[in-house]
């Protein structure tokens, strides 16, 4: 059966009301936990003051994007179990976060770093490597923002609204309050968005299976229908190739997630390293929701719905089972769910541009005020770029590039993640490794014509990003060893061991020990950290 996409007045009214509510919140957010928005760490990191609960909502809204809520069930609808790798991926990402991100938080706080490229610049004293990390971040983020627009487009289409104007209006509103309020806007909006998502999923996961005769029936129907698809899908990955693909996609995606600038922006805005650690334990609540949302793909199959495109699987399911007003709530949840990550991503991209391109190359002595106004304008340009992307080019390009973005961002792992633990790797060696990884990863994707993201090397069918990273790391290690053996190693490093140690791990800040430290807390300018007493 096909579900008609008629213009639905009731759904549209509910949708619009919720959208207006959220817009108001976005503007009011500027006054929330008021700070001087003329500082980049206030505008672009919310003053590094978000506690455990706000960070949970912000990161939840930031990482589990609207596009995820459309694309994951679409993939499960299309290929079955293979699309379910999103669940192990979002489980194993948190132990990784728990181990690495608090360390980055501490050094970023101590040194006033706002972006991952700031850290690389300080740690390795290498302008080329920092620039490359910044550019990779920008390149990977842009198509990701564009995909959020695709998410909005899909739900608008389901309500019978077509054309580019509604998208342009939605993004203009988003741009205006991001400009004004910075990271505070998505943080506040994320709370509404997440409550709506939880409500929608709770209702759907109880009501729809009750109409379809329980989960047993749903899995049985999917198990029968999937092998008939072209290419055939499966309810459980059986072959060795499929299992390698499954595990490597989960691992590679998990390693990539917190290298994305928007994920780090969300994490660095929290008030302490322990806030990050606590969130690593409570964010999996969203993974549970994501896993349930993935199952909507099977419910669409079991209901016998034939969506025009896999992306319509979830909207069609909701239209078929929900009354108009609740479909409006659900679609608003998805559309608002697009605004939060789009805002954080554009802020992260703006931070990168301001700190690592503008200040690095054009205005090394930029004042705090100049930095924050450049960032505000950059966030506008990023959004206009993403909008043009979706309006001018076919959607497929955004999807293909986002896929590549994951492969690309993984190539910054040696500098950003390994750099947290050791200064051994040489910046020049990492630069060559990065270039090789980018080239090989991109080549693999092009060779597969973007039809999949796993590539067979040495008979092993694994995620392209991991193959590229293996090459990247191998080159970086071998070249570093050669450079060091030839006594040509580099050693510039503005950070010291103490920068990675928490002085007060309870999250309560001690009184400033020196006037410099007090000034640093107030203004976020990097200063030499005070010597710690070791008695």
């Amino acid at each position: 059966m096909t579900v008609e996409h008629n213009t639905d007045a009731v759904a549209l009214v509910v949708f619009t009301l919720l959208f207006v509510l959220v817009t108001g919140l976005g503007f009011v957010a500027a006054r929330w936990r008021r700070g001087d928005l003329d500082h980049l760490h206030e505008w672009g990191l919310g003053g590094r003051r978000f506690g455990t609960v706000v960070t949970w909502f912000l990161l939840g809204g930031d990482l589990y994007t609207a596009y995820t809520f459309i694309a994951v069930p679409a993939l499960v609808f299309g290929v079955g179990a293979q699309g379910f790798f999103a669940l192990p991926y979002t489980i194993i990402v948190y132990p990784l976060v728990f181990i690495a991100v608090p360390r980055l938080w501490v050094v970023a706080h101590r040194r006033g770093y706002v972006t991952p490229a700031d850290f690389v610049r300080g740690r390795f004293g290498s302008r080329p490597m920092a620039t490359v990390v910044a550019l990779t971040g920008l390149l990977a983020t842009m198509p990701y923002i564009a995909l959020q627009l695709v998410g909005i487009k899909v739900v608008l289409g389901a309500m019978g609204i077509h054309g580019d104007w509604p998208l342009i209006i939605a993004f203009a509103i988003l741009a205006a309050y991001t400009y004004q309020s910075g990271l505070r806007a998505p943080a506040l909006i994320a709370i509404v968005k997440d409550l709506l998502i939880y409500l929608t999923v709770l209702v759907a996961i109880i009501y729809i299976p009750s109409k379809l005769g329980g989960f047993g029936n749903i899995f049985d129907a999917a198990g029968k229908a999937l092998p008939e698809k072209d290419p055939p899908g499966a309810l459980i990955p059986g072959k060795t190739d499929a299992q390698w693909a499954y595990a490597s996609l989960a691992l590679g995606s998990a390693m990539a997630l917190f290298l994305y600038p928007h994920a780090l922006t969300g994490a660095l805005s929290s008030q302490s390293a322990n806030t990050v650690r606590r969130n690593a334990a409570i964010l999996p609540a969203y993974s549970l929701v994501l896993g349930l949302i993935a199952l909507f793909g099977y419910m669409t199959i079991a209901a016998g719905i034939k969506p025009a495109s896999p992306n319509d699987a979830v909207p069609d399911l909701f239209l078929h089972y929900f009354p108009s007003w609740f479909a409006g709530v659900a679609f608003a949840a998805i559309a608002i769910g697009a605004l939060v990550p789009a805002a954080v991503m554009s802020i992260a991209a703006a931070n990168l541009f301001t700190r690592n391109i503008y200040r690095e190359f054009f205005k090394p002595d930029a004042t705090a005020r100049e930095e924050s106004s450049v960032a505000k304008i950059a966030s506008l340009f990023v959004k206009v770029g993403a909008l043009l992307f979706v309006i001018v080019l076919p959607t497929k390009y955004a999807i293909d590039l986002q896929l590549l973005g994951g492969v690309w961002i993984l190539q910054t792992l040696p500098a950003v993640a390994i750099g947290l633990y050791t200064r051994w790797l040489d910046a020049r060696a990492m630069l060559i490794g990065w270039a090789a990884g980018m080239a090989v990863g991109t080549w693999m994707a092009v060779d597969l014509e973007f039809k999949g993201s796993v590539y067979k090397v040495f008979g092993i069918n694994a995620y392209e990003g991991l193959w590229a990273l293996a090459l990247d790391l191998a080159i970086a290690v071998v070249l570093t060893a050669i450079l060091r053996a030839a006594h040509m190693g580099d050693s510039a490093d503005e950070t010291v061991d103490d920068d990675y140690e928490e002085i007060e791990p309870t999250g309560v800040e001690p009184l400033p020990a020196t006037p410099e430290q007090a000034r640093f807390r107030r203004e976020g300018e990097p200063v030499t950290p005070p010597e710690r007493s070791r008695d």
Partner: protein
Amino acid sequence: MEERRRPSRWWYALLVLPFVGLLYPPLYTRHDPELFGFPFFYWYQFLWVPVAALLTWTVYRALRR
């Protein structure tokens, strides 16, 4: 001043378990036993969500000084 004893870094080893449990699919790519209509493949992975969260919380509590 006497420094408080640093908790053992071995607690971090608990965080390896989710990787072992989830990154070797032959452990769970089977249909039976079912639970509430969910094939084993699905409920096994869902079960790891609270287990991994609990492990992370345990390590957090143990290492917090």
